[in-house]
């Protein structure tokens, strides 16, 4: 569901499924169990084709408290998902590529 790999200089989080009403609760439990002790967080969304408002909620509840402690970037983001992130202002705290 989510792969988390820790390197010396960053943590890479790869979502392997869509983030929606059905999947977000389990994903949130996985995320909340991590300490996120890094200066660089890279989130890979290349396997994600769809995010709904439950997914946006998960991302905001996870990333908003971290945004001043580290550089956060998202990679592999499709155009429709970029649009959703922009509407919800997530691109103001995350470097969306």
């Amino acid at each position, binding site marked *: 569901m989510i792969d988390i790999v820790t390197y010396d200089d960053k943590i890479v989080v790869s979502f392997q499924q869509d983030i929606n*009403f059905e999947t977000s609760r389990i994903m949130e439990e996985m995320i909340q169990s991590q300490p996120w002790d890094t200066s660089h967080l890279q989130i890979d969304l290349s396997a994600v084709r769809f995010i709904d408002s439950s997914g946006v909620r998960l991302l905001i509840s996870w990333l908003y408290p971290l945004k001043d402690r580290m550089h956060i970037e998202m990679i592999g983001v499709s155009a429709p998902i970029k649009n959703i992130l922009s509407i919800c202002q*997530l691109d103001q*705290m995350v470097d969306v590529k």
Partner: protein
Amino acid sequence: MIQAQLNETNYSMMISAMLEELDRCIQLDDMQKYTVQLVLWELVSNVIRHSTKKCANVYISWSDETVVIEVIDLGEGFEWEKQLNVRPPDLTNQGGRGLFLIQQLATHFSFDEKGKRAIVMIARKKGEKYD
């Protein structure tokens, strides 16, 4: 027209099946497909979360200009006035973006008076409005 009855056990599979069927029937660009998927997920998950029956009838119809999605809550309905036409949530608010996203992406979004029947229109041609 595509129609189905969705409930808390079949909604994910049924939404996928309806999207596949719609894809076979009409041509939509990636953004339009995403909007249809989002509208279905948001309105149906709203019924699953809040309705007394947790069951909805969903109808998708289309013309050359629009896709029309109708979701009828088989329960008591939804107090939509409290949720629609509110200010967009900022980043300090974690939730409350479902209906806001539909409002941003659709050309028309309304409920009936009892909050049981939602109608959403999505333009198939860019820049068109139907309100």
